[in-house]
């Protein structure tokens, strides 16, 4: 057992649930010394806390607004030396099965002291790969993580108007600026089939950002279609291959 107390971050959207974990950690303090670094009510708050403080273990609820526990783990997994994550859940048959398969640690609420102690003893320091974490949450992420000058920014998925693949990177373009993502277009297209439409081999557009389509290069016989973006002069070319798909999706 380590001499230094474990640094713990508690993440749950319900105040009594956070207090309960704090109480139980207090109960086992003699055998399992722990220091509570902070308490957060969702994944976004947790990531903000993690920017300023070092943490060994994150106790994360699975169902939370803004950012759930699984998405939090996916963002953490992108970091160097991520903290260990132990999920907590009241009941979710589907999730519990998936957790067993993914070999991540989880605690069932109400959490018992003995069970928590056991989980702290054999901390799983290495988070599973992203594709395994994806299987834990049926929903899609609400944020992309962007690494910039050593910091990790959260980019709300709803802000992204289109994504372009350029060589090794994917650029996410919002109304204000562009961000570099360390993901592939294919992954993003598969995760957000409802939100983003592929209009070109190297481009995904958010359905909500599309204002219309325009035919360009008329007369040369080799005309093509462009997507017009809402509140912007930008045009994005549609490939001939994707045009029928797009037309069907837009119903034009």
């Amino acid at each position, binding site marked *: 057992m380590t001499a230094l107390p474990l640094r713990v971050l508690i993440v749950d*959207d*319900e*105040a*009594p*649930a*956070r*207090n*309960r974990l704090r*109480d139980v950690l207090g109960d086992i303090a003699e055998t399992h010394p722990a220091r509570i670094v902070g308490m957060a009510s*969702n994944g976004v708050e947790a990531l903000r806390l993690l920017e300023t403080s070092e943490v060994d273990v994150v106790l994360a609820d699975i*169902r939370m*607004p*803004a950012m759930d526990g699984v998405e939090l783990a996916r963002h953490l997994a992108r970091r160097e030396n991520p903290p260990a994550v132990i999920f907590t859940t*009241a*009941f*979710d048959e589907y999730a519990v099965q998936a957790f067993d398969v993914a070999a991540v640690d989880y605690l*069932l*609420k*109400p*959490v018992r002291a003995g069970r928590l102690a056991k989980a702290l003893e054999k901390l799983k320091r290495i988070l599973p790969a992203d594709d395994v974490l994806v299987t834990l949450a*049926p*929903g*899609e992420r609400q944020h992309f993580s962007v690494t910039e000058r050593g910091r990790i920014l959260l980019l709300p998925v709803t802000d992204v108007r289109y994504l372009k693949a350029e060589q090794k990177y994917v650029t996410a373009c919002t109304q204000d600026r562009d961000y570099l993502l360390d993901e592939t277009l294919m992954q993003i297209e598969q995760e957000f089939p*409802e939100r983003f439409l592929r209009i070109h081999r190297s481009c995904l557009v958010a359905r909500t950002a599309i204002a219309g389509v325009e035919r360009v290069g008329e007369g040369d016989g080799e005309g093509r279609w462009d997507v017009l973006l809402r509140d912007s002069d930008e045009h994005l070319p549609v490939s001939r291959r994707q045009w029928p798909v797009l037309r069907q999706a837009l119903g034009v």
Partner: protein
Amino acid sequence: MESIKQKLGPPAYAARPDFRNLGVILRLLLAVNLLAVLTVLVRVDDPGMLLPELVLMAGRVELPLFLSVLLLYSLALRLHALTAEWSFAGVCGVALVSVVLTWPLVQESEGGSLFRSLGWALGATLLCLLYFDYRSRLFSPALTEARLLALTARIRPHFLFNTLNGVLGVIRTDPLRAERGLEELADLFRVFMRDNRELVPLGDEIALCKRYLELEKLRLGERLRVRWEVSLGADDELARALVPALLLQPLVENAVYHGVEPRLDAGEVVVRVAQQGRDLLLEVDNEAVAQASHHAGNNMALDNIRERLMLFYDLEGRLESDCSKGRYCVRIRLPIRSSSA
């Protein structure tokens, strides 16, 4: 007490058709006319004679039929007070009396035999009663299922465990609140587990919802806001109106699960109860949360309520849900039945 009885008898309320229900009346008219058409089709060989024969048949059938419907409508309450066998006999009697009473008018057109007409009327009545019996059996699994659903899917284990966790979370800091929480939980589960196939006063159902929301407040705190827009009429008359048990609570639970829990800021659930003419209007309304994962449990609860409304009220009970202007709203309309009737 009835509720101590372990063996479940047939659902007393649903087994017999309510002859004052618009849906039942329509079904009755349609069924008898269909039988009349079938009779003509079987009897007439010459296609050219089909139309005159149909008109003739209509002349014979419609008048006694309308009289029967009228008599059944006025005798509905009396029939209801009788035992199942006697009310069955009563309905047959009404049909036969209608044929006899209208006989002088119908018979002039054609010298048919009174006994043949009586036989036909009796057969048609029996077939109709069989149809209504079949229909009530067809829907009655929905009632038993409602109880099971309450214990399994609808009263989500999610709710039970989260509530217990919430109670444990306040037990050291606020033992009184924890105590109250467990009392509320006990009351709720008492209702969930009882035989919910009877109608209950609306006032009880509203009290149940309030208890449930009190419990959810323990966990969600300020995030859960509730607005009641209840007008129970003079002297709380509407509170005594009878509704199927667990009609409103599942809707409120859905609203909390889908409309409040996934929200970062506070979410408001609006419950409206009002009388509109002779109908009772119930509405549960919450801010819609834009999330792709719409829980299957939601539709399960709605489908179950819809089936139970069909069973109790036929065409006169309705459940609609719509999502517009960022709010998700479920609306139930049903005829008012008061406990004194």
